């Protein structure tokens, strides 16, 4: 059963860093280009993020995931190249379509910030189990009920996906065809979704009972089975990320 999310199981210094520190880093580095408002700073942030993906041994996965948004970026270049309000200098013409230098430069600027934001998120998401992140947020004060909902969604989605496969098997063993043309697959939808939805509702009710018996409604402070995540570089990294953000602000104000 594959867990929800982008997490890649690896051994690396980035994987070992605590989720809150990585979250702080991701938020700060994602904001740096927006605050600095300078393409050069944006490239520096991009290089830092790519470097951390290398250190985290997830560069390949990161670039593959980035390729997934390639279509969106290509559209951005075409649209901005054609209709950016400041367009003045034609650069490329393909038949009736003309792409302008100003529009393409603006698209590059937008794309750089978008890619930086995405890579910052990747540094966090590819190296952090979602459950660990929510756990640490709860430890930091996220209400337990909110944390539970987030965690259970993360766990139950893959479990439901696995259940779909079990239900499909059960229906195939009653002669229901699930392979073949689209209409055959469409016809197989209800016999799969029906048991999935009904049993999920029943399970939800039973789980609610079980949670009561397991003290979920108990008042008072909760404790945590896992010890708090401690890393000697946690605070230095957090401070460095914050400094980068402040530095970007100073750059903006000074510039």
């Amino acid at each position, binding site marked *: 059963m594959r867990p929800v999310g982008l997490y890649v199981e690896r051994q690396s210094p980035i994987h070992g860093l605590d989720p809150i520190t990585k979250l702080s880093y991701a938020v700060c580095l994602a904001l740096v280009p927006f605050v600095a408002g300078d393409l050069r700073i944006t490239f520096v942030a991009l290089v830092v993020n790519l470097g951390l993906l290398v250190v985290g041994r997830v560069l390949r996965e990161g670039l593959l995931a980035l390729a997934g948004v390639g279509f969106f970026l290509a559209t951005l270049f075409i649209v901005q190249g054609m209709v950016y309000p400041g367009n003045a200098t034609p650069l490329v013409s393909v038949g009736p379509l003309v792409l302008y230098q100003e529009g393409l430069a603006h698209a590059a600027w937008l794309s750089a910030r978008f890619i930086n934001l995405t890579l910052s998120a990747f540094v966090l998401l590819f190296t952090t189990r979602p459950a660990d992140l929510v756990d640490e947020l709860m430890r930091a004060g996220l209400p337990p009920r909110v944390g539970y909902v987030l965690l259970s969604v993360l766990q139950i989605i893959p479990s439901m996906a696995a259940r779909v496969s079990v239900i499909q*098997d059960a229906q195939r063993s009653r002669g229901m065809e699930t392979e073949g043309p689209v209409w055959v697959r469409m016809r197989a939808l209800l*016999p799969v979704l*029906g048991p999935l939805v009904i049993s999920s509702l029943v399970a939800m009710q039973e789980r609610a009972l079980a949670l*009561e*018996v397991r003290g979920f409604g108990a008042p008072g402070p909760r404790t945590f089975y896992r010890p708090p995540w401690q890393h000697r570089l946690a605070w230095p990294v957090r401070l460095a990320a914050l400094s980068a953000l402040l530095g970007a602000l100073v750059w903006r104000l000074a510039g």
Partner: protein
Amino acid sequence: MTPIVEVEGLTYRYPTGQANALENVSFAVEAGQLVGVVGPNLAGKSTLCYALLGLVPQVFRGQYEGRVAVAGMDVNRTPVHELARRAGLVFQNPFTQLSGARRTVEEEVAFGLENFGVPRGEMRRRVEWAMDQVGIVHLREKSPFLLSGGELQRLAIACMLAQRPDVLVLDEPTSQLDPSGTREVFDCIARLRADGLTVVMVEHKLERLLEHADRLLLLADGRVRAWGPPGEVLQSGQLESCGLALPAHIRVAACLGARSASGSLPLRIEDTVAALRVARLAAKAGSFEPAVRTMDTPADREESRLSTSRTVPRIALRGVSFAYPDGTRVFQELSLALGGVEPGAAPEGYVAAGAGPVALIGENGAGKTTLVKLIAGLLRPQSGEILIDGQAIRAQTAAQIARRVGLVFQNPDDQLFKSRALEEAMFGALNLGLSPREAERRAREALERVGLGSLAEENPYDLSLGQRKMLALASVLAMQTPILILDEPTIAQDHPGVERIGRLVRELQTEGRLVIVITHDMEFVASYCPRVVVLARGAVLAAGSARAVFAQPELLGQAGLEPPSTLRLARALGLSADPLTPGEFIEYWTGLGAGPSDRPAASVPPG
């Protein structure tokens, strides 16, 4: 001593119920006792469990009268989370007991302790202890979602044990466990009771319960039919009149008029052995007179009249190897023939089970379900070939194979989705391309066969779990496949339900269909499945006649199984025969001219 559980005049009706689920129920449990709650389906057993934890009425609402107190707390006035500090409940379905929010088994065990704010050091000790008690320490890093049914059941118990309750309520905690797993759970409960734990346990496995319980509570239609020490409840005859099956060794003792030293029916198999030894001495003294009126028929004798041997097996697995995508290897070069071909006549390299209904037995995780999924085409082997009636199935879809192989899943809720039982029963037949009229005819016939003829218009989700399992069976029966595979059909069935399935297995055999049953119920195998395949860690340990296989206790031990209790009885008495059922034991025993009987005994129920 002050009771730790007090139930006085408890009457309860669910908000949507037409009748009371519990009616004037009263009993009291003293600290350290184990109370077994037994009864047929829909007796109110699970409702009683909910009531002991305050879920009834606090969560379910409905009409509530009477008083329930647990550990001095009135469950109607104390919040459930407060009660949960002193009392634990292991639900019938272990999967829904999972928090659904924890990544590993050990974190899942700790979930309740985190909620109660238990300090981490103490929490770690309790988690280790609880996992050790139920034997799941080796699963600590595994995802709870990847556990088998048996493993989940142990995890659910561990979760409650970690909360260190004074009173533990268990709703059928061994239903998914193999015999050795069941024994381990009962042994664990016995150890905990020595530390003062009070246990209220709903359980169908009467043989184990009678060995361990201090008191039995027999419920039927929400009312208390009997309450007291197991011996007294047994003696009252109420268990049988409520449709429960007595353990095989007790049926033997009852029929032979053998009694324990106190004059009551023996509760444990050791007591039956002792009573029969005394009886044998009495017989030698010349006082024996057979008291048996009717006999049940062991599976192999019944089937020997019905089965015909074939030259081509119905199902042949030729050098089949299979591993799951995560790398877990289940079968390696497995060659097995099922249906028709006798062990001696099997092609070289094959293990054959022989003619007649086949039971696939083995401990949890032995590969039983994987094997039948391969046969049904739901899984594909990495190498080797599977043939049905001599024809390879490699190129066929599972839906095409379903024309010849009907597979009834263990969990009916994986299949049911229609709003009427009749439509549900027609689903498979319609998939075969039959006309609606013919599909309905077959569906009605199948519903009659499983005892749901009068419930054809009901919504499947208004039926009990046992009935839903019967409905899933009916929907496959209506397809009239030459091969029918039943995965754990007796779980959640009361005794009449088990007997009905047994009769059906025999009927299908007489119709020339091959029936394969996956089960942990050895008494069912002894009565209805003359052929057995024993699986352990993906290998066939033994295959052949049930009698020959059950006569090898060491082999069964390797597979986490144990022989039927009449065979254990015969072994303990040093008999040379291998009786599989009470009737066969009695026949042999009376043939020896050994057996007491100074009073008439009841007839032996079949099976």
